[in-house]
Every structure is written in C-alpha cells, then in structure tokens.
C-alpha cells in the first residue's frame, strides 16, 4: 500500500505541469482563440522562473516571474491575432518557435546551475497517517494549487456570468459584439490567463519538479496539453483526468527504466507521444462530441467591421 501511495504521488507530480497548461489553454479556446504557442510559453516561464530563483534564492518570486513571463508571451500573441488579425495557427507556431529560441538564449548561463527548489509540503499531523497521509497530504504545493485552479475554472466557466460571456464570445463573437461586449478585450484576458497558466506549468517544472534548467526541458508537454484540451472536450475536470493519465504514462516509462527493463529506453520514451496520438485519434473519431463541445468560432479571427 505504501508503494501504491508513492506511485500516486509521483503520477500527480508528473501530471501537474500538464494540468496548468491544459487549463489555461482550455479557457483561451473557450473564448474562441487557438493558441498553439503553449510549448513556447511554458519554456519561457520555466527559464525565467529558474533564473529569478537562482539569482534571488526566492523560489516563489521565481514562480511569480515565470507566470508573468508566460502572460507577457501570450500578450504578444494577443497583439498579433486580436489587434493585428494575424492567422492564429501561424502566430501560435511563431510563439512556440520564438519561445524555444528565447529560452535557449537567455538560459544558456544557467544550464548547470543548482537551485533550492520548492519541496513537497507535508501538512503537519495528518501527513503522518499511514498510507492516506502520503496519498493525500504530502504533495507539492503546486499539486494542491492545480486542483484548486481546476475547480475555479470549472466554477468560473459554468457557474458565473463572466464565464457565460466568455463562452458566448467563443461560440458567436458577432452576437456577443452586437449586445455590447468587447470581444477583443474578453479574448485578450482569456489569452493572457492561458499564458500565465502555461508559465506556471513551466515554472513548476523548473523550480519544483526537477528543479533545474535544460534547453527544451518541457519536451513537448505544451503540445500534449493542446491535445489534452481536445481529449477533455473543453471540460476542465476531464482535462485533469487526462493530465494524470499522461502523468501515469510518463511515470511508467521511468519506472521501467529504473527496474532495468530489457526494452530500449528510447522505445519507452516514445510512450507519452504515441499515447497522445492514439488518444487524440480515438477522441476525435467521435465527431458529434467534438462538434457539440468545441467552441464554434475556435481559430476564427473577429473584426467588428469585416
């Protein structure tokens, strides 16, 4: 049982960056904007949080900086797609390519740096309980934060007036505009929120999960998060489940390597990517579920005059 609790804890830890990134992208897409730059925003969030942590020795300050950096990247994407009406697919790709380049450039001096990361938070007394203590009360603070964020996003989107407006903008921007809402402003806020979440996911990886910085350390998690949003059919709770599923796959790969499996490590490392493809294909087959849940204006630019 103790071993099981450890496995659960490791799965949650591995899935948490995906939870952050996927929730942020989910809100962005609910407002009708497809931002393919998640990978770039995560990397920049990771490198900025790591550099700030390494220089100030305050990891939470680093996390704040990483969130800000992710939001700033998203703002640049917003200017391109919302103010300058650029193609969202191309701009998202640009954001990812730019993020990869920028993070590699500014992080070069920190590749072998060591920081004191954010350790798991064992809640006093209750975490000493056998099994349940480890299972429920001894995770990284980020794990609790991601669960809270998921609950908040769910509540916001489906139980508040503001959430209804966001969904309306995603379904029919022209109608939302006609009854007096500023489509651009609402989309800007959603895009920036998405960037902040991606930055948070990156920051978690750089100052808590590993804690270190290597070039391209997110290893495609931003792209997996994009696939998760489709898998979740744009519902926060399902995104959470999907993220932990992938956390489990990542973990299975490390466990097999640690146990000295005969299978070459490269084949095991392919698992999360192959799993993403399989899951994406299976869920996309259900055309009705996708059409009913996907925001109707996803990826389409909106200009009041055009």
């Amino acid at each position, binding site marked *: 049982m103790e071993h099981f609790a450890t496995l659960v804890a490791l799965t949650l830890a591995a899935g948490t960056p995906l939870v952050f990134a996927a929730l942020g992208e989910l809100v962005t897409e609910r407002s009708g904007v497809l931002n393919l730059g998640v990978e770039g925003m995560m990397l920049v969030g990771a490198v900025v949080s790591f550099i700030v942590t390494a220089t100030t020795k305050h990891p939470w300050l680093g996390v704040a900086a990483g969130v800000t950096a992710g939001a700033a990247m998203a703002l640049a994407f917003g200017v391109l797609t919302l103010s300058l009406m650029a193609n969202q697919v191309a701009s998202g790709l640009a954001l990812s390519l730019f993020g990869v380049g920028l993070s590699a450039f500014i992080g070069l001096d920190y590749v072998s740096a060591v920081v004191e990361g954010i350790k798991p938070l064992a809640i006093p007394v209750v975490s000493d309980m056998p099994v349940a203590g480890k299972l429920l009360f001894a995770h990284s603070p980020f794990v609790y934060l991601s669960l809270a964020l998921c609950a908040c996003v769910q509540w916001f989107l489906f139980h508040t007036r503001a959430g209804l407006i966001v969904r309306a903008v995603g379904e029919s921007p022209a109608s939302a505009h006609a009854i007096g809402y500023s489509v651009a402003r609402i989309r800007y806020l959603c895009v920036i929120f998405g960037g902040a979440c991606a930055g948070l996911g990156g920051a978690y990886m750089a100052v808590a999960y590993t804690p270190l910085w290597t070039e391209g350390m997110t290893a495609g998690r931003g792209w997996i998060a994009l696939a998760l949003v489709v898998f979740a059919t744009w519902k926060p709770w399902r995104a959470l489940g999907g993220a932990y599923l992938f956390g489990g796959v990542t973990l299975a790969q490390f466990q097999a390597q640690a146990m000295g499996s005969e299978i070459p490590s490269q084949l095991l490392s*392919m698992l999360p990517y192959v799993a993403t493809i399989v899951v994406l294909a299976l869920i996309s087959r259900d055309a009705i579920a996708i059409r009913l849940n996907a925001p109707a204006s996803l990826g389409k630019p909106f200009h009041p005059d055009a």
Partner: protein
Amino acid sequence: MRISLEARPQPSRSMAWLSPLLAILATIVVGFLLFSSLGRNPLQALYVFFVKPVETLYGIGELLLKASPLMLCAIGLAAGYRANVWNIGAEGQLTLGAICGGGVALALEGVGTGWVLLPLMMIAGAAGGMAWAAIPAWLRNRCNANEILVSLMLVYVATLLLSLLVQGPWRDPEGFNFPQSRMFADAALLPILLPGTRLNFGLVIALTAVALGWVFVRRSLTGFQMRVAGLAPAAAHYAGISMQRTVWLGMLIGGAAAGIAGVGEAAGPIGQLLPSMSPGYGFAAIIVAFVGRLHPLGILLASLLMSLLYLGGESAQIGLALPSAVTGLFQGTLLFFLLAADVLVNFRLRIVRDSSIAGAARAAAKAGI
C-alpha cells in the same frame, strides 16, 4: 486621435511583397538593439552576423548548402499550407528520410551498386518521409485527428527512433562506442559542385523542387484544386474537390520533400547517421514557407535568408562570443514581425481624429453620462 484598421476590399499585392521586407528590417533593428544591450558594438556585430559569413567563396558554398534542405522542406510544406493542411512535422519526416536513405547506404555498402546507389537512397528517403507524413494524413481523414498535433508528436518519436538505431543495431563497431553509424562509402555521398567548398548536388535537387513546385502550383489542375480547397473550402466542396485527397497530397508532398532533404544531409555534409541529423531545419522551413509567401520564388529567397541566420549564429559564436542560440531567437522574431506586418496586406491603417461627434459620444460614454 487613434489608429483604426479598415478592411481592404482585396488583399494588397504590393503589401504582400513589402511586408517580408518590413519584417526583415524590423528584425535587423531588434538585432541592433540586442547587440548593443549585450555590450557589443552593434554595427560590428551586425557585420559579423550578416556579412562576414558570406565574404569568402567557401562561405557562399555554406550559404547554399544550408539553404538547400530549407528550400526543399519549405516547398513541400507550402503545398500543404496553401490547402490549409498544417504539416508542422517536417523535422520528423526529415529524420525518417535520413534513417531510410542512410539505411540503404549502410545495407548496400560494398555491394558495388555504382551510380544507382544515390538514386536508391533518395527514393528510400522520400518513401520514409512520406510514410511518416501518411500517419497524420490518415488519422486526419479517418478520425478527424488534428494533423498539427499528430505530425508534431511524430517529430519526437522519429528522433527517438534514430537515437535507438545509432546506439543499437547501426552503431559503428569501430566508433569507440559513440552513438553514430559507420561513415558512408564514397558512392553514397553526393558529389561536390564547387571545388573548395562543401556545396553538393543537393542544391540542384532543391532547385529542381522549386521549379517543380512552381509548375505544380501555377500550371497543374491538382495544384489549382488544392489552392481552391485552401482559399474557399465550401466552394471546393461544391465543385467536387475531395478534401481527403487534398489532405493526402498536402501531407505526402511535404513528407517526400522533407525525406529527400534528410537524405541530402546524411549523404552530404554529415556523411553518416548521427543522433541528430538537422539543427531544426524542419521547423525553420515553416518560417521560410511563410516569409516566402508560400510562393516558390519567395521560398528560394527566404531560404537564403534563413541559411544566413544559421551561419550568422555560428559566426557570432566565434567572432562575438555570443551563443549560437541567438539564431533561434532571430528566426522567431522574424516570423513574429512578418505576421504583424501582414496586417497591412488585408487592412488599411487609418488615423481617426476624435474631434467628431463620434468622439464626443465616446467621451460622454466614458464619463458615464
């Protein structure tokens, strides 16, 4: 007073060609600011980055050498992009091409195939790239799975596959345990075009692809149908143009071109299989395709520019002690500015003076009246 965007009735053709130039100019300005903020003499730094690499004949050779795979990949990608088929996995298709082409070279070593070997490698590489691109195409048509995500995931899988091969079955037995294959025999290497440089026959292949690309887009019915499918999907459907066929063609052309580019790298400057066969040519080709306006001639010019960015990064590393990662930064910046400048293609900037009634009304609304 504020600036507002006014939709143009038709996209401006002159702006379509002007906006890449504006983007290049803006990128150079950013480079100027970046170099000065890093405490380098900006003019000298720009010289080291953009001029020094191509001052010698060898440098020109390198420029064309690196432009070849970029050109080839971008021509293939553009075929899909024009039809709204977003293949962003050229890097993986290139890797598969290198694996298949390189595999043929290793398997037929010493068999005495003569001149047939290189064409065989090219065919194998193209087939490998196409097979890799067929996966997202099939999943898109069969399951409606997003080809962007699938093709990108396959980049990681391809890189791991190559790493598996060069560390396992294909590892050079005399290679001191380095993860690399044997060096290819001379018959498996592309002939050098310009003595004294590394420029090889790959450039001829790339230029042929550019010419074929032009014929395909401008002179063939299929090319026309694919353009229609991209510009007006509803009209294309009404006219009986099959979207499934468009997806297949768009992906497979991109895969074949990238696969051949992969063989070009393996049989060209590298001459063996290594764990990484390209410094991100497949991703840079996406930028090349956009900066070149998806037009063959534009792609030709844009690939030269992108190649110069690669050389500039290397030159900056030696001459300015700057990390070569600055290349990726410039690439991303260039694409950013291009997309921003593209607003001028579809919109007119208009300065609206707020002295009118509308302005007064807005001021009143702000004051809460």
